């Protein structure tokens, strides 16, 4: 087995990891700051993919159609997220976890039915522009050029979130709110506005992830349920609320999956759940989480 093959498989795992990171980072961010376990996060991701399709459909005659559709879908979904936060989510901030889960699960069903009404039940397909339709060769091994873009988006989002949380004033407030909402509130900073901002940001990332996923295969109902478990695995391994943890865990899950396909294809998916169970046993708060967030 030569090095170029190992590298190709590594890149493949990295692209899967970045896709998972894009989905899981919004989930982790919302939980980390707001303590809301958004079960509907993957369904928002799916709506993002459908929105991307709609924008692409309108712009498909232009060479930039797909590229512009991706941010437009993310922004549109963020707007939808903002409305949902104002109308529904903010009413359960102080409720118990089961009630939050019930509401967000209800959102899964409502959004699923809305997708059926708006886009129908048939699969949607986005044609990739020529720039990302053919492979690139890395050390002699072909690699789907679109996944280079996926990896780039993953890294940009990771760096962007890190910069936002560590280097901006708003980010400092957000991090302070994670530790003591009361103190931040006492300083005259409106907590509800912070929460709205974070929820909208989380949903924006979900929309971006969905839009990035859209040109990979076909877009269809039920995709969200297939991905939500893996996204939760990533968050559990990384530690609830830890962005760095989510990033590292996504790469671990992506690489474990990719290399197990190479060496033990029958056990690829099982291995992810074994890793998740192992982490849950030895470190219930995840690799980068804290014990109070188990």
């Amino acid at each position, binding site marked *: 087995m030569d090095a170029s093959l190992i590298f190709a498989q590594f890149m493949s795992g990295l692209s899967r990891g970045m896709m998972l990171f894009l989905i899981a980072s919004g989930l982790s961010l919302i939980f980390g700051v707001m303590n809301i376990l958004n079960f509907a996060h993957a369904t928002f991701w799916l709506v993002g993919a459908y929105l991307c399709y709609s924008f692409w459909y309108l712009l498909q005659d232009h060479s930039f159609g797909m590229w512009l559709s991706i941010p437009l879908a993310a922004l549109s979904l963020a707007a939808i997220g903002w409305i949902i936060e104002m109308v529904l989510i903010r009413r359960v901030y102080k409720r118990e976890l089961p009630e939050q889960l019930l509401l967000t699960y209800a959102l899964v069903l409502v959004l699923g039915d809305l997708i059926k009404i708006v886009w129908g039940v048939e*699969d949607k*397909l986005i044609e990739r522009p020529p720039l990302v339709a053919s*492979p690139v060769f890395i050390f002699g091994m*072909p690699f789907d*050029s679109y996944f280079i873009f996926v990896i780039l988006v993953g890294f940009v989002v990771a760096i962007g979130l890190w910069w936002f949380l560590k280097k901006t004033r708003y980010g400092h407030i957000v991090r302070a709110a994670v530790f003591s909402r009361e103190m931040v509130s006492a300083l005259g900073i409106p907590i509800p506005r912070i929460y709205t901002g974070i929820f909208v940001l989380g949903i924006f990332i979900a929309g971006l992830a969905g839009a990035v996923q859209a040109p990979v295969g076909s877009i269809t109902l039920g995709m969200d349920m297939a991905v939500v478990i893996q996204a939760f695995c990533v968050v559990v391994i990384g530690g609830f609320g830890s962005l760095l943890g989510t990033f590292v865990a996504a790469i671990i899950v992506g690489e474990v999956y990719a290399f197990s396909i*190479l060496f033990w*294809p*029958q056990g690829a998916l099982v291995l992810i759940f074994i890793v998740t169970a192992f982490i849950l046993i030895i470190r219930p708060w995840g690799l980068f989480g804290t014990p109070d967030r188990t």
Partner: protein
Amino acid sequence: MKFKMTIVVCVFVLLGGFPFASNCLAGEAYHLGVDLAITGTGALYCKDGVDAIKLAVEEINAKGGFLGEHPIKLFIRDSHTKPDVAVREAKDLILREKVRAILGTYSSACAVAIKPVAQEYKVLHIPAISNSENITKVNFSPYTYQVVPNSYMQAKAVVLGVAELAKKKGWTEYVTIASDYEWGRSTQNNTVALLKQLAPELKLKKEFWPRLGETQFTSYITAIMAQKPDFVIGSVASKDNIAWMKQAKAYGFFDKIPYPGSLISVSELIVQSKGLTRGLIGLCRAPFFAHLDVPMMADFVKNFRAKYDRYPSDWAVMEYDAVYVLKQGVEKAGSIDTEKVKDALKGATVDTTRGQLSFREIDNQLSCSSYIGVVADDPAYPFPIYHDLVEVKGPDSWRPEAEIVEARAK
């Protein structure tokens, strides 16, 4: 007085009681259940199936329904491509909606799960899309009829073609990729077993089993390329198949490794019309363009296009046939009584869009064909179709009866 009462009771029994005794009344609606994957992995195929069923029902109801006096009432349910949901919906269709037959299903796992339920409640079951041979081979139910070439028949068709190609091209090693569920496993296992028989010199290097619903195949693609096989055999369906083929094409996979005989149904030909690699050797179950010489097919395509403004896929063809098979069963039985229809269909010869075909008595499998061809553009259609189409007839490809008897004895 007693005599008069006796006469009244006798008249009632003669006029009214008979229909009750045979469990159906003149003018009684025929409740027909549909348990298909409106959402989930199978949604791509099932939308066409549901539309074709609706069309067939409209046509039959325009003439008064079954036997001209039993209008069909449709009850459509979503199995979500999940066996537990499919069974729940099937039970609800039977117990609440009192359906006499259930058409379905996309996933073979769903079909296998529904089969005992239909048998328990004595309801006819025609899973017109799912095609694992285990639906009719083992745990046989006399209520289940199959109008799709099953996984063995499809595998045999592929193997006949591949064995021929392997000889010609000097291929010696291959790998497989199949969705990890009932149909994928069944098709892949049959293909490998048949290749062992017909081309024992071919060596299986590795098997890959992506989960059902997989969206990213990159790791599989590079892992398969690393094996450097002479060819790859795939059993991936519906939206998974689209993702797989789209990503494999972006890797230049099909330019490097021959991929003969994978399922490329009319759905894939239409949906991927721009991106599908021309020259691929594909397999399908019921392409309409293979039978336009059959008047029933020509009419169906015309009516389907007029109603839905698109061409019908394999799945539409087979679900449409399922309704008409049921109609012919009812006509042969002279009744909508399920027991009589079930018996009437046993070994029956029926008219379908794919010509006149017969059910084999041992497993209620229709003698339908499998089709292999080369994906190519055709000026008659806005999407590629198959050229050099080879039709492998049902009786040439189905499992010998002795093997079925043996499998059931185990």
